[in-house]
């Protein structure tokens, strides 16, 4: 609370604004409030109902407005901006179609608890409800996908509403807040008094520390466990509890599994970090969860993509769940100890009293599972013996990510779209720092990658930012290339171009008897397309070209760059837990021996005469290898 007041004061000083009352228009009040909340960038798109505010923006050069090419881009950019720093991102749009275009971005932010504030214009107060031109009930539409929203009905309440909107967006479990402002309210004038007293909302008080009794119960379960595992989610980095997490794991010798959004909660090079769990998580991680006798879930929400079949999920384990949102406790998984609180505080409470435990036998078991996974690995150093399933001379999406990881020194902020490339990034790009992977986990929004990367780069200009996108999702928001060019945003775009809606194709291969309906795509020449925007490009078709291309991209330090990685069309993300299956019931990539055995069987099935079987083998292997094995 006191932090916030000082932040406000600092913003006041920086903005050169006085706290003396002055008469301002509603539009100017909006700008004043944005400044006082520490906003420096607004992503948006103008139109009739928000024009007064756009006009007022001309008087506030400290507020840099980024003109997107679609309002969806604005909400994703605000989201990317927020996720890269934890600061609130701001999107602005006009009424009606402008506001509805924001919706996908708002829902994306809601699912991943990302703090954004959306300011929309609305038709004048008197016209509301009359189906006026470009009127839409945006507070109604966004009711289920915002943490809270406001329709401002008088200029007097505007400063208070703006302040509350930012407060609600960034505190507790963060989330999107929308403020809908009728045009007449933007035009009216009123004395502007920015409230300085701390915000008190009677129905809103985010919890902080845990109850002592709960902490005792958790410690008791930890003390009694033999096969404990920590499940670390997005909440760790959002609470800034990364150090506490590492300390807790080290002190008690407990391995850590990460959710997709939990990547970055702890360095993936840390010996206690197992990697990602869930549908495309490591097999050893899922086995460990299923065999554990204690789950310690921290700031994660037992999404169906990480639990698989709930009825068989970690059946033999006791469960501790720590979350700042009480409604997450016992929602999907019934737990033994539910702790509501801020993770930083709760982990400190646990750390003080947790004891070191001998978990060697448990680590040995995990190591066995891991050794089996390594056998099946296809992405290996170029000089190592290759997995026989890797087709000769073809570029794999998984290799691209692995090499990108290597040639960016594992230090970039990566922003992904949704699909196979997203899962490869999660598997092969090992993150060290919090907020260094930005991806749409909860909603799985294709089209998120490019705009969110632009937002992330604008909020962290000091960082190298890569947008890793599929050829499908890229085409959903590729108009934002123009925004990146206009704003000279130095984001590096890597298209993992497989000519398919790859992830859907994979489901069709596994579950719909290879009927690839509506998943192959005829794509434009992405290099030519980007060149039309004046963006430097490279096309990569072989593994050997990756290093050079990445180097060339990184040497460009102004404006966007684009690499078109033309990869194998029918690659598969392994392992895979089919939707609704048990978490340890995974479709695995075969081991080299299994793979060769499968090839022999297929060859034998094709050519029953024993004398030709031998000579047919390589052809059969090729036919099979290009698809299922990879």
């Amino acid at each position, binding site marked *: 609370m006191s932090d916030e007041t000082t932040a406000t004061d600092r913003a006041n000083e920086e903005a050169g604004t006085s706290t003396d009352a002055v008469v301002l228009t509603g539009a100017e009040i909006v700008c004043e409030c944005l400044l006082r909340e520490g906003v420096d960038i607004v992503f948006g798109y103008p139109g009739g109902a928000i024009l007064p505010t756009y006009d007022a923006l001309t008087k506030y050069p400290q507020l840099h407005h980024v003109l997107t090419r679609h309002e969806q881009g604005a909400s994703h950019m605000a989201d990317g901006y927020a996720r890269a720093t934890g600061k609130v991102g701001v999107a602005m749009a006009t009424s009606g179609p402008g506001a509805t275009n924001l919706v996908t971005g708002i829902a994306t932010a809601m699912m991943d608890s990302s703090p954004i504030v959306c300011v929309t214009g609305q038709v004048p107060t008197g016209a509301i409800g009359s189906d006026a031109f470009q009127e839409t009930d945006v507070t109604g539409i966004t009711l289920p996908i915002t943490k809270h929203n406001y329709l401002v009905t008088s200029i007097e309440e505007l400063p208070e509403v703006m302040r509350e909107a930012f407060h609600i967006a960034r505190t507790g479990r963060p989330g999107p807040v929308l403020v809908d402002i009728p045009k007449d309210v933007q035009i009216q004038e009123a004395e502007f008094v920015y409230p300085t007293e701390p915000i008190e909302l*009677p129905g809103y008080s985010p919890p902080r520390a845990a109850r002592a009794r709960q902490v005792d119960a958790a410690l008791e379960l930890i003390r009694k466990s033999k096969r404990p595992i920590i499940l670390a989610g997005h909440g760790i980095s959002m609470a800034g509890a990364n150090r506490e997490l590492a300390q807790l794991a080290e002190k008690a010798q407990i391995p850590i599994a990460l959710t997709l959004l939990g990547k970055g909660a702890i360095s993936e090079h840390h010996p206690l970090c197992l990697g990602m769990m869930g549908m495309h998580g490591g097999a050893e991680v899922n086995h460990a969860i299923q065999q554990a006798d204690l789950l310690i879930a921290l700031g994660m929400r037992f999404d169906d993509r990480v639990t698989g079949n709930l009825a068989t999920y970690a059946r033999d384990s006791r469960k501790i769940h720590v979350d700042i949102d009480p409604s997450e406790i*016992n929602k999907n998984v019934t737990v033994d100890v539910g702790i509501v609180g801020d993770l930083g505080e709760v982990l400190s409470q646990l750390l003080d009293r947790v004891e070191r435990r001998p978990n060697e036998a448990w680590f040995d078991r995990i190591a066995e599972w891991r050794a089996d996974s390594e056998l099946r690995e296809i992405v290996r150093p170029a000089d190592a013996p290759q997995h026989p399933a890797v087709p000769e001379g073809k570029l794999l999406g998984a290799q691209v990510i692995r090499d990108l990881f290597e040639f960016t020194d594992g230090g970039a902020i990566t922003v992904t779209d949704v699909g196979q490339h997203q899962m490869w990034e999660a598997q092969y790009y090992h993150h060290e720092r919090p907020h260094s992977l930005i991806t749409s986990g909860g909603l799985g929004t294709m089209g998120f990658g490019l705009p969110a990367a632009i937002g992330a780069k604008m909020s962290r200009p000091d960082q190298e930012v890569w947008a890793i996108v599929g050829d499908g999702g890229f085409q959903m928001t590729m108009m934002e290339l123009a925004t990146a060019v206009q704003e000279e945003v130095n984001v590096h775009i890597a298209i993992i171009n497989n000519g398919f809606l790859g992830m859907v194709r994979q489901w069709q291969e596994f579950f719909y008897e290879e009927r690839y309906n509506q998943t192959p795509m005829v794509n434009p020449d992405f290099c030519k397309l980007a060149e039309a925007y004046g963006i430097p490009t490279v096309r990569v078709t072989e593994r050997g070209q990756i290093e050079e291309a990445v180097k060339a991209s990184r040497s460009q330090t102004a404006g966007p760059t684009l690499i078109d990685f033309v990869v194998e069309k029918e690659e598969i993300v392994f392992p895979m837990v089919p939707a609704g299956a048990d978490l340890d019931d995974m479709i695995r990539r075969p081991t080299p021996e299994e793979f060769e055995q499968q090839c022999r069987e297929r060859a034998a099935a094709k050519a029953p005469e024993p004398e030709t079987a031998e000579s047919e083998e390589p052809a059969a292997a090729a036919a099979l290898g290009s698809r299922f094995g990879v």
Partner: protein
Amino acid sequence: MAKHILAALVENRPGVLARVANLFRRRSFNIDSLSVGRTQRDEMSRMTIVMESDSAEADRLVKNLYKLVDVVHVDHLHSQPSVVREMALVKVKASSENRREVIQLCDIFRARIIDVSAESLVVEITGEEEKLENFTELVRPFGIVEMVRTGMIALGRGGHTLKDEGFKPNRSRAAARRNVL
């Protein structure tokens, strides 16, 4: 499965009812009845929500209600002594031959007759749910032309009071404060 009665104090702002109603739909809560009305304080309304469910489900609803910024306080009245009332208006078919019988029934239930016409009576009856059910069952043979029920309202007995002392109305918001409906 049991009947759960929740009482919620909500800020009297436009849209609150929509938020609560949306919550029921969005998270598939099956609600028996919902009644909303003013309280002793202009800035607050009180909702009484009745649901037939197990207690885990009721607990889930309480937590989700608390997530709404406009919801100030929620109490599970089921778990404490409380008084519960519901009112119904029932229009019963009553000709000159059987009118007396209906009136007698009303007397037994302490129901009031508030309108009389040649073919029917309108009866006002207040009480706990069971009483209302019994009454309607008994008058059903005469013919119920139409009826309406308010849904339950409830208050804790004696010292069991929904906390509102933390609530300070915000002056700049007075303009926006309206009936939640």
